[in-house]
């Protein structure tokens, strides 16, 4: 499984694992979106600490979930990004968004 979802009073956390590319992003997207659409959490956390590889498909994955949760009036927080992943995020010019929280 490329993603495990846990919910609490705080919101919903999607723990992503393994390698994120165009192939695996599809499965992650479908799983996360189904869970979000079902329970419309106030907070959605995407946890990248178990992700060993990510290419630009990961950026599409983050931004797509960002739009989805905003649509429901919720907040997205991205946690556990490695230096490698942070590099791709900054190439995308996204570090200015307040969704990235590595102290989490």
């Amino acid at each position, binding site marked *: 499984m490329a993603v495990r979802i846990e919910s609490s009073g705080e919101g919903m956390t999607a723990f992503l694992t393994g*390698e994120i*590319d165009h192939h695996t992003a*599809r499965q992650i997207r479908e799983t996360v979106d189904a869970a979000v659409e079902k329970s419309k959490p106030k907070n959605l956390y995407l946890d990248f600490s178990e992700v060993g590889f990510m290419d*630009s498909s990961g950026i599409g994955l983050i931004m797509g979930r960002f739009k989805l949760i905003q649509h429901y009036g919720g907040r997205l927080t991205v946690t556990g990004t490695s230096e*490698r992943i942070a590099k791709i995020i900054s190439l995308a010019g996204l570090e200015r968004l307040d969704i990235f929280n590595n102290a989490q």
Partner: protein
Amino acid sequence: MKAINEMKVTFPSRSSNESFARSVVASFVAQLDPAVDELVDIRTAVSEAVTNCIVHAYPDNIGEVTIVARIYPTGRVVIKVRDKGIGIENIEQAMEPLFTTGGEERYGLGFSVMDSFTDKLKVTSKKGKGTVVTLEKYISMRQRQAKQF
């Protein structure tokens, strides 16, 4: 300068081959004893080039993707990723950061990643004929002097 080693692999443009593609190139380059970061740079750049063939070159069908990688005595690695898909009409525009024809889930970042994670990026394309992306990366000398080159 003549290449000292070469590999070639052809596979159908199925997304399940993305991980295979970056792994096979990384395994081939491993003989140069690259640093971990250099290898991840190559894996990421290859992943971008191959994904573009799968997503953009063959939007409605499955076609052939070919990777040729060559190693030169100086530690230079040249990787060509080729498709026979729809081609790119305006290469300059396609390479602009955040330009995409890929819809909601794409961010237009692939060429920026390839550019920043390699030492040289070249794209040639012909509409209706296909695209060749050439990635070049220098692997630093490190322990390589100790080996027989």
